């Protein structure tokens, strides 16, 4: 049996989640006595393919084509489904990233496969894979099993641990998939990266600010603290709705659900919908004037105090520790 792991890359570099997906595939494969085949799709990617051996792929299929340089929903779906078929993979793992969530449903239809999305754990019992996934933005967790012959799981970034690569190597196999113009009926023409900005969905540390900061200009405090920690800046719904911060920074049920190793909530009281989006963070720090704020019920460490005094002191202490 084979497990196909889709290793997402952009600009010829693997996303961190690519290693997480391959490693998770390997963990499942070991219990099913299966083999992990990784798939890399793009342009100028053959040189990076070998890295996946260290995370558990015994073979890496490389589909390289200048036309696949930028992501195309339709073309990538065709390539992934084609390779899954030629490899006779029964299980397909993808990242639940912007790309993975976009391509997975189309692959599922092509393979007539059941699809479990945004999984945070996979376990194997008696040859059956059970996936755990958050629902209601993490207010609930469900265990699901896929009943179809071919099964697709997408994995939430930042949850599965890739660890350090071993010295193992993988066989690299270049494959061609015939693509015509119709296969690019949905295609990315340009990617606009916000320069230097870390995304909350991918960040290992997040510093978020809320309405208690009183105005958008005071987010400088949050940015400085985030800068000292090399962290992403997040925001509560209240401040996004008020137009202080862009929506892509919003953490919570109508924003992004995040699981960083450290989440620092500054002047955020902790509405139900915000807590849902960040409670699965490994460590949570709350800084709030109101000792009864609900955010303290999920915080590992709290400072009951004025953010305008505490945050600059914290930034100074962190710079001292990290020698910045």
């Amino acid at each position, binding site marked *: 049996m084979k497990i196909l792991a889709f290793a997402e890359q952009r600009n010829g570099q693997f996303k961190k989640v690519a290693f997480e997906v391959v490693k998770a595939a390997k963990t499942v494969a070991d219990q099913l006595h299966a083999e992990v085949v990784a798939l890399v799709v793009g342009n100028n990617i053959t040189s990076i393919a070998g890295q996946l051996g260290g995370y558990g792929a015994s073979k890496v299929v490389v589909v390289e084509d200048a036309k696949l340089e930028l992501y195309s*929903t339709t073309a990538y779906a065709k390539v992934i489904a084609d390779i899954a078929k030629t490899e006779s993979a029964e299980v397909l793992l993808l990242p639940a990233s*912007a790309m993975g*969530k*976009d391509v997975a*449903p*189309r692959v*599922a*239809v*092509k393979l007539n496969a*059941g*699809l*479990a*999305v*945004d999984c945070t754990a996979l376990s194997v019992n008696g040859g059956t894979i059970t996936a755990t996934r958050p*629902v*209601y*933005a993490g207010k*609930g967790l*469900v*265990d*699901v099993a*896929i*009943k*179809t012959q071919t099964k697709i799981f997408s994995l939430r970034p930042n949850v599965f641990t890739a660890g350090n690569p071993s010295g193992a190597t993988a066989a690299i196999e270049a494959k061609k998939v015939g693509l015509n113009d119709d296969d690019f*009926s*949905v*295609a*990315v023409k*340009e*990617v*606009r990266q*916000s320069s230097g*900005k870390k995304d909350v969905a991918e960040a290992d*540390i997040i510093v978020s600010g809320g309405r208690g900061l009183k105005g958008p200009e005071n987010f400088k405090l949050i940015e400085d603290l985030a800068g000292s920690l090399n962290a992403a800046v997040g925001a509560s719904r209240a401040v996004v709705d008020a137009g202080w911060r862009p929506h*892509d920074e*919003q953490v919570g049920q*109508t924003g992004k*659900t995040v699981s960083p190793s*450290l989440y620092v909530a500054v002047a955020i009281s902790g*509405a*139900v*919908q915000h807590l849902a989006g960040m409670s*699965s963070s*490994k*460590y949570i720090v*709350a800084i709030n004037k109101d000792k009864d704020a609900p955010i*303290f*019920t*999920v915080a*590992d*460490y709290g*400072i*009951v*105090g*004025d953010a305008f005094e*505490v945050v600059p*002191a*914290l930034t100074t202490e962190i710079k*001292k*520790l990290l020698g910045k």
Partner: protein
Amino acid sequence: MKILVFVNHVPDTETKVKIGADGKLIDPAGVNYMLNPYDEFAVEEALKTRQSFGGEVVVVSLGGEANKETLRKALAMGCDKAVLLKDSAVRDSFAVAQSLAEYAKEYGAEIIFGGKQSIDYDDAQVGGLVAELLGWSSVSVVVKLEIKDGNIIAEREIEGGHEIVHAKLPAVIMAQKGLNEPRYPSLKGIMDAKRKPIEEKPASAAEIRVEVSAMRNPPAKASGKIVGTDASAAAELVRLLHEEAKVI
């Protein structure tokens, strides 16, 4: 243009999830339901599309009698007609998509709008599934949309940036917050909505591929430590994060 918009009826964001007696679903007692927030952007975009190209907007929801409340809201915003695909069974996204796709074909839709995800099951897959079942284009997490001469130029949100996507019609467009500013239903709209028809028909049967065996609440966090009450606690907090939690 024949415009379809899919809407879902979901527990509001204030809901605290309590597990139901079957151990697989939410206990609906005391839960307020509402039009899925992302679907509001979809309805607005559908109405704007009608404004530009003419035609009609049909709003469709799959579920029980209660979904009529959400359909009425979409009608009050300005949709022309509502369809309830009646079904009381629990479905996965694939099974939902199959029935929606079937209806879209039957209706002869030329473009479909939906929210980028439903805030109950958070799958974010129905739009892509419908598009593939119909052999259409799809663009997900859309924050900007332009339709011209049968082509679409859309901007979608990705990690740390945006993608500019070109696609051909017909297409399924999944709306993200920021795409537009959804209108509030006017009083006249609300009155009119009461007179607009809601067509009811049984949702087509579909195979369930993903089965839920159990639902539970996430483990409660043990209450944490209050490190201090002013800026002087900063040094101790940094020490704890470095030495105890080992996260910095």
